[in-house]
């Protein structure tokens, strides 16, 4: 009687701690919605995680404590070490990696439950199976996304009949899943093991053909997937904190994925099941005008005597590690009384908002940075637009030319400025392989050079005026 009573007290204590954790997660995420409170937001969520983690040790009937502690220690040290030393340009693939780990953990919980065969009732088994598929796909898919962004896998694997193979793998996985559901959790190993193996395989197959520029959408999607898998496994375990946190992330991640896809003017199914590079063959060859180069001194004069300069950075800037030089150039112009603003396209970088992080790292204050809707009306009032490492996101064809592959994609209206200076390494084309009509316009000047070195020459050009 006494132990029964203390068990129920313990259970209340654990549930209360999980409730507080869920509350702190939501408050934390809410605080992250403004740059001022964002820093505190992650701390709130962190405290919630700590409370939930510690209280779980008090869960009645647990054993294997040493194994648990060893796993936490090893995983924690490895993740802390890698998270501390990763450069900001590589952040998207690290987020993908950590996210995949969460998906893998959810799949492991499902595997545990299905192998034990102690999950009873229709709903828990169904959710365990669905969570297992989503978690496993998120795990292996995120690993492929990581490998691609890290440059470990360079080619996008595409072959004839790929969709059919993928569909087949998915169908068999689903069939095995249904088999497990029908057997009510008492499925034999020779059903459960192929089920997980095929789910993992599907994650790999579906991610392999997706190109690098589409990875922001994919990472965001897998983030949402892991959230859902966690919520479903939370239901199986009867853990409300997992349900709430997982579901909040699942919904938030879905919204972020939609925003990303919309910014690229593509649907999520289009990203997952079509190959962008192959559709981008038509629509060029009728660009009029010529490329007009400009020297550092002239470009310097143009910017130094402007009232307003808008800088449009793209991922090329980050690859060339030019963001620190760009900030130096900005300060130089500001000291001369020039208003400088940064215009960021939603898909600049390899993750939504990635470019903002890279600029923040270089020291650019966030109030100088504007997004597409804010900055587009301002371009006509700008004397100079400086484009560095961006291409397709400033291509006016997206607005004007119906047969262009990027037609309809929201772009930054850089062409509306009085003058446009484009820093570019050579005369090559952008990611999509299409000509950029902006480069051929009368008010556009090309400033050839490698990102960092080109900006350094610009800085010298402006300094020589003093």
């Amino acid at each position, binding site marked *: 009687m006494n132990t029964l009573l203390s068990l129920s007290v313990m259970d209340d204590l654990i549930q209360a701690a*999980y409730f507080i954790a869920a509350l702190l*997660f939501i408050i934390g*995420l809410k605080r*992250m*919605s403004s740059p001022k409170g964002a*820093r505190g*937001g*992650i701390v709130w*969520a*962190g405290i919630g995680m700590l409370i*939930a*983690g510690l209280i*779980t040790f008090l*869960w009645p009937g*647990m*054993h*294997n404590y040493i*194994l*648990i502690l060893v796993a936490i220690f*090893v995983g924690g040290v490895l*993740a*802390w070490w*890698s*998270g501390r030393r990763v450069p900001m340009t590589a*952040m998207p693939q690290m987020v993908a990696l*950590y*996210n995949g*780990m*969460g998906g*893998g*953990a*959810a799949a*492991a*919980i499902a*595997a545990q439950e299905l192998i034990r065969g102690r999950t009873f009732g229709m709903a828990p088994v169904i959710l365990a199976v669905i969570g297992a598929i989503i978690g496993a796909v998120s795990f292996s898919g995120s690993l492929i996304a990581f490998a691609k962004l890290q440059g470990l896998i360079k080619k996008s694997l595409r072959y004839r009949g790929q969709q059919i193979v993928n569909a087949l793998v998915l169908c068999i996985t689903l069939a095995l899943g249904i088999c497990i559901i029908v057997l009510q959790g008492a499925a034999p190993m020779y059903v459960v093991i192929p089920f997980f193996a095929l789910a993992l395989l599907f994650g790999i197959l579906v991610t392999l053909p997706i190109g690098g520029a589409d990875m922001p959408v994919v990472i965001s999607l897998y*983030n949402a997937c*892991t959230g859902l898998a*966690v*919520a479903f496994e*939370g239901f199986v375990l*009867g*853990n*409300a904190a997992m*349900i709430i946190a*997982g579901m*909040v*992330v*699942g*919904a*938030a991640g879905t919204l972020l994925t939609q*925003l990303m896809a919309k910014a690229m003017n593509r649907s999520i199914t289009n990203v997952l099941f079509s190959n962008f590079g192959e559709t981008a063959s038509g629509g060029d060859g009728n660009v009029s005008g010529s490329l007009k180069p400009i020297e550092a001194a002239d470009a310097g004069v143009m910017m130094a005597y402007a009232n307003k300069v808008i800088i449009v950075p793209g991922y090329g800037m980050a690859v060339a590690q030019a963001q620190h030089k760009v900030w130096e150039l900005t300060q130089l112009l500001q000291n001369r009384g020039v208003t400088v603003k940064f215009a*960021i396209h939603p898909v600049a970088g390899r*993750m*939504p*908002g990635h470019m903002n*992080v890279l600029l*923040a790292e270089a*020291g650019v204050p966030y*109030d100088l940075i504007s*997004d597409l809707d804010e900055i587009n009306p301002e371009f006509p009032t700008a004397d100079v637009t400086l484009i560095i490492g961006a291409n397709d996101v400033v291509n006016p064809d997206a607005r004007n030319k119906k047969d262009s592959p990027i037609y309809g994609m929201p772009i930054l209206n850089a062409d509306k400025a009085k003058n446009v200076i484009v820093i570019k390494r050579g005369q090559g084309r952008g990611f999509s392989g299409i000509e950029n009509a902006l480069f051929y316009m009368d008010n556009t000047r090309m400033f050839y050079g490698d990102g960092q070195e080109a900006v350094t020459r610009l800085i010298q050009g402006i300094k020589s005026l003093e």
Partner: protein
Amino acid sequence: MINGFIALYIFMLAAFTGYEVISRVPVILHTPLMSGSNFVHGIVLVGAMVALGNADNPAEQIIGFIGVLLATGNVVGGYVSTERMLEMFKSSQDRKKGARA
């Protein structure tokens, strides 16, 4: 154990909460936010701990161990990377203050 319909209500309300909380976030915070929500689903750690804590044979222990290992990676990696990113976001005024100090 949570009753099925109660769970359904929790699913629904949590989904709307997630949608509402994120929908007003400025684009500049999308990356830290994705990283932050990535950290939050690290709560899978508590489930993985319970699963390993109830494992009775080597096969279950191995799966449980992998689960806790991966989940901890999610939690710690998610926290460290988010915190690092958010630390860098400063306004012009913060910069000036920092320069004077």
